[in-house]
């Protein structure tokens, strides 16, 4: 599949008219996953275990 000159570019977008909303959506999802997993790992897996270290 040879890459032709404009490799599928449909239109040029300059800096000022480009707002990465898709990126914002992905990053919000990633943020939520991080918070949920951290809370789970720390408070359920870690603190919820048997003999704990205290000193």
């Amino acid at each position, binding site marked *: *599949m040879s890459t032709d000159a404009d490799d599928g570019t449909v*239109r040029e977008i300059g800096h000022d008219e480009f707002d*990465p*909303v898709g*990126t914002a*959506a992905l*990053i919000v999802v990633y943020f939520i996953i991080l918070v949920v997993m951290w809370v789970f790992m720390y408070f359920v897996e870690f603190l919820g275990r048997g003999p704990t270290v205290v000193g």
Partner: protein
Amino acid sequence: MATNETTFADQFPKSARLTRLSFGVAFTALAIGGLFGLIQALHRTDIYRVLPSPDYYTLLTGHGVLLALVFTTFFIAGLFSWGISNSLDRDLPGDWISWSWWIMMTVGTVMAALAIIGALIPQIPMQADVLFTFYVPLKGHPVFYIGVVLLLVGSWVAGYDWFRTFWSWRKDNRGERIPLQTFMVLITMLMWYLSTMGVAAEVLIFVLPWSLGLVSQIDPLITRTLFWFFGHPVVYFWLLPAYLAWYTVLPKLSGGRLFSDPLARVVFVLFLLLSTPVGYHHQYIDPGISEGFKFVAMTNTMFLLLPSFLTAFTVVASIEHGARQRGGKGYLSWLRSLPWDEPAFTGMALAGLLFAAGGFSGMVNAGMNLNYLVHNTLWVPGHFHLTVGTAAALTFMAVSYWLVPQLTGKKLRLRAFALIQPYVWFLGMTLMSNAMHRGGLIGLPRRTAEPEWNLPGGSFSEGIGSLNEIQLQIAVGGILLFTGIVLFLAVMVATWMGRETPTIDVDSTIPPALSGAENSPRILDNYRLWFAIAVVLVVIAYGVPLWDMVADGVFSPGSNPVTP
């Protein structure tokens, strides 16, 4: 070159040759190290064993050294040689100094490899079953340590080769901003010089004389602290070249432009400042280090997440820009209009995705007391197979699909293999790493030839599904990963051995960033200032503890060498 279009190899023959040779050694190390990894995966999971268990640790040392030290360092040497010439539009000097670093690194690699393999081959009177972290008091053959030192010093000379090319460019271009790729190479090497002081001091002052018998006892705590002084920045030495590819090549491959050049510079400066004063997060549960220093390391490490978060934002925004320019619509459906049939793009995008997962498991490791949960369990290999094993390694393979044609003037062969290789790697890595994380949570230790549970009295609570399911998933993942390496090497060898082609079918032009370097403060380019600040931060984090360890006698409390 018979091609009618001028490739990188035509414009910069010396730099191209050094890059080709470096990639050659890197891919050889990848092949051998990958094979060891496959044998380990099948041995550990008791699926198929070819060697007695004590020899597992020889393979583990080989796997660690050949992949994490040799494959990475050589590929980075090649990628940076290309980056310097490509962005400065100037060939490397290519004199005896340029040759010296490649020869020194290669001789060092052969020495270390012989010392490691020696444990399996009786005729070679050497062994180095000390793993790639070579913790004292386990002692390897001196040839192993000399090999590691040569590899290290060679990389220093390579850094000098790039700096002097930059200085000669600077003489002809007073007042201009440093081109982005060169800026990234220089900052990464400054971090490398600062951090390798730790391991150089460890080996040259302590371990080498000790292994030669000149010193009878050395303190394992000091050597371990000096190793991890270097041990964390080395992971950024592997990662920043992948960032160079993500910031400067990936946007173009996705059909877009880099979102912000200044932000990329800020990210690299943050890495220079913060990556070295964090070493204690590898020693959270070591005796002999007070909790205060561990807390400082934890705080620095957590703030070291910021440049990676910024990278996630900038790189994904650049890819989205490409998707929009290719007609992508909507909040998420733009993902479909990205070139998923282009191996170079797919490899880097999937590597970035797995790096996001690896980032989380790294945050768990970095949580000081949370580290009790996972330290030295199978969780840790699960983590670093996502970070260096995929974010770095898969990105290196992906950028090779785009770069090797430019270095050889030959069109990429076996494109179908190249097309599916990133997907095979992604699937294999997700399976293996997921199972490793779960194994770590139920307490399986890392670096063991036989998982403990089939020992009488060895008992692990039934994790999710059964332990056999975890073992099977690791084995399947390992097989898929090795298939990924074979596919990649088949493409590289077929391309390299193939005859030259009129066109190389690769668009090597890199468009300028959306917001360029010109509107960013000039101080960003003042690398001397950032290096000075980095040194100060390291002195603050390491000054007092290192002094305490040295104060009670440089070599005491000493330990005698023990041959594994």
